[in-house]
């Protein structure tokens, strides 16, 4: 841990830097209910979703649940390099804040993102008939389901039952919020000009933060309280996999447009107002090889990093941004991502800042 001597006097921030720092809070952010999911925020749905999330009976084989990969004891991820399509399992903490789901944003709601693994043959492989049978067998589940959606339909081919289960899983996941962090204490202290509290934030983290909101240009994409603009970018990670190239956002949009489960489809509640992003999003050649800008909260508990889990430690991510191959990036204007060529001390500072975005529980385990 950081020695007491590291709590030095605070660094000077310009008014511009200060404004940027403040824009990364307050935390926790308010969860806006998802109007495409009429049971979002409903306590019965949250409880049912919580149970089903770890219930192996949900899978056709009775061997798997969501928690097999999104382990609640590991910040709702699995710590493995990649599990599915050579993609790293993302944490589900703060997932309720997102607009697009999956590294490629192939789904536009938390319930559609939950439906995919629920129904996929290679994952839980649950069918409407399988779920209907489970509800017939388990009285507690059935009572909750009926209270929310009415009698489970006898028509076992009806996909609504799967969508409804996915909506309860989503209601549960929307309650998963990452804890406050040393950065949040600093940010609030800065907002209140509380110099004693400001000085408690290690000066290495303060210097790293200065790079983050300044020269490093990290805040261009990792913006706002969740440290993501919710969009997609190419930061120069290789996207070739054993089975070819991962098309990233390009492929995600392809799936989104053709999915019957997007916000413009018949299974979405809430109507057009909840579909603004889906209705207006466009596909462009540059989307090929772009991946979602991940949140940076709770990093200490979510290694490895990047869409393919190819960076083992936070230090490796910093090294990537320090030495990134610029010829790989097709930006013709002013470069946002470029090799920062950090000195070892600067790299340590940026790492210290990134680590300060984790709460007490994930810090303890490291």
């Amino acid at each position: 841990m950081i020695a007491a001597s590291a709590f030095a006097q605070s660094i000077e921030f310009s008014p511009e830097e200060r404004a940027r720092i403040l824009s990364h809070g307050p935390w926790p952010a308010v969860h806006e209910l998802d109007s495409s999911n009429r049971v979002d925020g409903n306590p019965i749905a949250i409880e049912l979703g919580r149970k089903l999330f770890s219930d192996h009976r949900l899978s056709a084989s009775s061997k798997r649940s969501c928690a097999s990969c999104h382990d609640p004891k590991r910040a709702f991820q699995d710590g493995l390099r990649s599990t599915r399509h050579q993609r790293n399992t993302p944490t589900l903490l703060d997932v309720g804040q997102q607009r697009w789901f999956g590294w490629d944003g192939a789904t536009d709601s938390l319930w559609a993102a939950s439906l995919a693994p629920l129904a996929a043959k290679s994952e839980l492989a649950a069918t409407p008939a399988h779920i209907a049978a489970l509800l017939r067998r388990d009285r507690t589940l059935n009572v909750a389901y009926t209270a929310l959606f009415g009698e489970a339909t006898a028509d076992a081919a009806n996909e609504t039952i799967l969508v409804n289960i996915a909506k309860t899983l989503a209601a549960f996941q929307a309650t998963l919020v990452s804890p406050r962090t040393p950065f949040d204490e600093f940010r609030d202290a800065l907002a209140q000009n509380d110099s004693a509290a400001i000085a408690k934030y290690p000066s290495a983290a303060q210097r790293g933060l200065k790079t983050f909101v300044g020269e490093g240009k990290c805040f261009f994409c990792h913006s706002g309280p969740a440290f993501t603009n919710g969009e997609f970018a190419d930061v120069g990670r290789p996207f070739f996999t054993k089975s070819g190239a991962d098309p990233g956002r390009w492929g995600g949009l392809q799936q989104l447009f053709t999915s019957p489960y997007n916000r413009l489809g018949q299974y979405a509640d809430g109507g057009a107002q909840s579909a603004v992003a889906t209705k207006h999003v466009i596909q462009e050649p540059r989307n090929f090889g772009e991946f979602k800008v991940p949140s940076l909260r709770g990093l200490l508990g979510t290694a490895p990093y990047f869409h393919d889990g190819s960076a083992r430690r936070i230090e490796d991510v910093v090294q990537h941004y320090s030495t990134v191959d610029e010829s790989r990036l097709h930006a013709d204007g002013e470069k946002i991502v470029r090799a920062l060529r950090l000195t070892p001390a600067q790299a340590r500072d940026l790492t210290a800042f990134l680590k300060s975005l984790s709460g007490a529980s994930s810090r303890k385990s490291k």
Partner: protein
Amino acid sequence: MMACVRRRVWLACSLGAFALNASASEPCAIPEPSLKKGGVAVGWVAENSPITVGRHFAMNVRLCPADAKLVRVDATMPEHRHGMNYKASFAALGEGRWRVEGMMFHMPGRWLLRFDVSAAGRTETLTESITLP
């Protein structure tokens, strides 16, 4: 040339000859500050202000003359040579009022907001720089 009356935030402007194109009795009223070029004027306010990086916003737009047509709304980051990840849509609400939906600035920095407006057989492009912190 131009007679403007300040009413709180809104400014009622009769834009000289162009007021003739609008319904004859009503002066063409648009919110200030407005953009003016080649006989057309555009006033706009963001519905969910302030505009925030990574959040969708809608705009209420007023055009003068009132029978002018909005033909395109877009925004780019000139320094980074990219546009939005979304294509805005818009609808006429009547009397020169329009509603634009689906705008989103996904990065901080300078955005160039662009309105293409056609009136009297010509299309004008009006732009405004917006810098997000």
